[in-house]
């Protein structure tokens, strides 16, 4: 082989090198995105963010049901917390390939501040105004649930913080806090002079604002120890409802109003006029 004949081979070798190098470069570029496209941890956070609200609401419903029956707050909280622990276990199991570390803490929270409002009682032509002092409502650190019942302003609430370390995806320290509540204000009671009808005006709110889907079947009213049928329940917007009861006894009254919202959360107000 003479020296002139080696030139095409050298050119061919260089050309081959360029082609293979180009192929390898484009190969790396094409596979590069898959190594960083890990969305499992995003799915997990979306799932936790949406479902923790649901379990907190369901557990609050469980807590209020138990408290309504037994009147034992600690026992009711213990029962409700079992559901939250079950939820935590379900998540740990479902996302075990991601080495999930999930922590739910009863961080406590001030749910509502102290306030004052006026309760109007009208019987025939006479009107009496009562000033209702609403004390601040707090869920103490260490508890997830609390309720303040048997007052003109009553409330049931739950609050918890959750934090996640997704070790498999190297995502650490995601955390958030959630609150669920149902509050009831009794603002006006009107009884006509013939005792034919009593009208009770009440305001119902949840953590997202006014409750607009209360059903007449979910309202229970007791007057002076006797349960009364609710004749009608009319909604006037912004959480304001008007419940009527036919044929009531003469005053004075001790009225218990128990409401259950569509989530199953119970709240009970008591008015003495």
């Amino acid at each position, binding site marked *: 082989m003479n020296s002139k004949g080696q030139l095409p081979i050298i050119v061919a070798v260089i050309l081959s090198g360029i082609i293979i190098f180009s192929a390898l470069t484009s190969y790396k570029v094409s596979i590069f995105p898959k190594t960083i496209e890990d969305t499992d941890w995003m799915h997990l956070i979306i799932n936790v963010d949406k479902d923790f609200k649901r379990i907190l609401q369901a557990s609050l419903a469980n807590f209020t049901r138990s408290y309504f029956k037994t009147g034992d707050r600690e026992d009711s909280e213990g029962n409700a917390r079992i559901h939250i622990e*079950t939820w935590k276990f379900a998540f740990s199991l479902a996302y075990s390939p991601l080495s999930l570390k999930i922590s739910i803490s009863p961080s406590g929270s001030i749910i509502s501040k102290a306030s004052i409002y006026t309760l109007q009682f009208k019987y025939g032509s006479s009107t009496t105004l009562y000033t209702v002092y609403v004390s601040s409502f707090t869920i103490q650190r260490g508890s997830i649930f609390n309720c303040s019942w048997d007052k003109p302003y009553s409330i049931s609430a739950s609050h918890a913080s959750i934090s996640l370390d997704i070790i498999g995806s190297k995502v650490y320290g995601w955390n958030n806090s959630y609150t669920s509540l149902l509050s009831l204000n009794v603002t006006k009671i009107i009884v006509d002079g013939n005792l034919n009808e009593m009208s009770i005006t009440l305001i119902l709110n949840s953590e997202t604002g006014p409750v607009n889907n209360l059903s007449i079947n979910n309202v229970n009213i007791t007057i002076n120890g006797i349960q009364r049928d609710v004749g009608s329940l009319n909604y006037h917007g912004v959480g304001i409802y008007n419940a009527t009861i036919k044929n009531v006894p003469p005053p004075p009254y001790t009225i218990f109003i128990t409401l259950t919202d569509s989530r199953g959360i119970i709240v009970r107000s008591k008015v003495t006029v």
Partner: protein
Amino acid sequence: MNCSGQFRIIEALITVILVIGSMTIAINIQRIPSSWIIYSRRELDDMAFNLLDEISVPTISNILSNQTGKWESDISLLLGTLLPKTVYFNMTIYEFTPINESTIVMKMLNRFAITNLPGNFVRDIYESGSAIYIFTSSNGRIYMLVLTLIRVKG
């Protein structure tokens, strides 16, 4: 033909073999890791998760609360309507029930497979993806939904 001429021919042949060989290697390298297939699996994972996220509250919650008749068929019909015809699915639903403070029971809820996979499924599978979704119903029952999606040729 003299000796010098023969060498030229051999050199030319070696050159052609080198160039064609390198091009063949390059083409093969690029064909194997098709980026389309890689993204397809991720997209199936996302599709499965988004589907569970969207339908769990309004539809599956209602079906699971009532559990009347062959409710598994209702979910199967729903998924079959929402997914393309070239995507097969298989869904399993588990429920977590607390017995006491230290015992939790996990049981499979569906009595038969929620799937549109034919019994003798032997078709070419392009790619498969799956997602898990934990869902708490309004009455406090905790479910784990597992959805697998399989994309086939055609």
